């Protein structure tokens, strides 16, 4: 474990040099939040509705702000591009003979980057949310530790899926198209709309999907906490963490063997 902590510390120091770049990259996230703000403002005002699918305008904007906040972590190049480029270029050969697991190495780096990103993006997201819509009245501070727990698990699930997709590069040259598909599916079924906005027949499908565990479920708890639903989200998250870790372990083992066959 100490070796991963050392990688974490080294990456943290390295990433601190680029903190300004991370702040600027929030501008992109901020633009998306602003577009959703304009969209929902238009939809709420056009029919003079005060509630859509059980959400007030303020809750909807905070929902979008925090789904964008959550997805900003898994868009990291460390889980999305680095493994792909390491595999395709053959650089992975230099890391697989080191006394650590490559997946552990990637995750140590990812957590280090996420630590800085979390501080910057959390402050910016809260500030932007307050400027756009004001404070969230339904937020209950006493549930904060529970919300932090499910937010953390959400980031792990999303980044595990990203890494699983990156490892597709063991078999195909370009895994990036799958990353686009992942981004689109998560954007449509998690980031833009809460579960309740979807047709009733589609809701169970989304509720039991990783999109709910990684995006909409945890953010819904932040916007409108409900202890029974919290347990549902937590169980679903633990299930997905277990399944995804299993998949990534098997995938990496098989992938590395394929890489050896190719002489990479």
């Amino acid at each position, binding site marked *: 474990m100490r070796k991963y902590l050392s990688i974490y510390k080294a990456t943290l120091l390295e990433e601190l040099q680029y903190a*300004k*770049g991370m702040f*600027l*990259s929030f*501008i*992109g996230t901020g*633009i*998306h939040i602003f*577009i959703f703000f*304009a*969209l929902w*403002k*238009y*939809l709420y005002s*056009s*029919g*003079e509705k005060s509630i*859509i*699918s059980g959400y007030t305008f303020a809750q909807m904007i905070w929902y979008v702000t925090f789904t964008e906040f959550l997805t900003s972590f898994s868009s990291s190049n460390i889980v999305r591009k680095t493994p792909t480029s390491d595999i395709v270029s053959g650089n992975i050969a230099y890391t697989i003979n080191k006394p650590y697991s490559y997946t552990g190495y990637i995750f140590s780096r990812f957590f280090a980057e996420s630590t800085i990103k979390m501080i910057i993006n959390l402050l910016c997201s809260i500030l932007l949310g307050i400027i756009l819509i004001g404070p969230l009245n339904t937020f209950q501070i006493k549930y904060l530790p529970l919300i932090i727990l499910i937010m953390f698990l959400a980031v792990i699930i999303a980044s595990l899926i990203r890494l699983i997709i990156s490892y597709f590069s063991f078999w*195909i*040259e*370009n895994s*990036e*198209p*799958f990353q*686009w*598909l992942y*981004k*689109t*599916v998560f*954007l*449509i079924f998690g980031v*833009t*709309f809460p579960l309740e*906005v*979807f*047709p009733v027949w589609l809701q169970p499908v989304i509720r039991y999907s990783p999109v709910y565990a990684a995006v909409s479920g945890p953010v819904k708890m932040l916007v409108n906490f409900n202890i029974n639903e919290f347990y549902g989200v937590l169980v679903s998250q633990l299930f997905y963490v277990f399944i995804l870790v299993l998949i990534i372990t098997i995938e990496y083992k098989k992938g590395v063997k394929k890489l050896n066959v190719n002489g990479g």
Partner: protein
Amino acid sequence: MLTEVKNQFKVSLLSIKYSILRSMINKSSFLFSVLLMFISNASFLVQWIIILSVSDGADLSMKQILFLWGIMAGAYGLSNIIFCGVHYLPQYIISGKLDAYLVQPKSVLISIATSQTSMSAFGDLLYGYAVVLIASPSVITFLYASLFIITGAIIYACFVTIMYSLLFFSINFRDLVTTLTRIPTSFGTYPENIFSGVLKVLLYTIFPIGFIVYLPVRVLLTNNILIALIVILFTIFMVVFAFVMFNMGLKRYSSTNLMNARV
């Protein structure tokens, strides 16, 4: 003068041809990228079906959304097929790789712009035509769509060029400028009805999304030729502006000791 233009055009066509051929070297990877980009774009229709289901009272229609997505995806796709090289400008400016283009007896900007292509952009272009023709399957729609996909592609490439030309003056803005170049694709897939005030002014000035997609959609919906002419005139203005900005910046370009050649 005419011969010079003809020669430049010929060289540009060859450059585009070889960029496209290069991107198709791995055929399965190419087809896979095109297919998944098409599917990824098509998935956004689900988003709009949901939005329209909660938009009673709003002035939005599926036809408008299909036109919007068609023109934006088509223009973005065509721009990245023909002028993808403009996205490499920061790298060239900062690392001094422009030298290889400067020694060629042809337009530096056109040579750079046509030197690269994006595989997935073919998926965007195909999707663009598909949704526009689903919304209104007619010859006139096809002709209008082709015109606006071309003008949109040129305006977008010029916008990216203008933004990246700022890096000639200071490379410190690289991250900011890169973020700003993504604004047209972020705003361009949402109807202009939802934006108002100062933002709407910005979308027709600094970020020319209005001319890339909003005005073309109006033409497709209302068949107003005058608006089409305005779009064409704006495209010419953007081309001139992009060349002026790039050439102004180029005067401040300083090389590095990096050895590079283009064969």
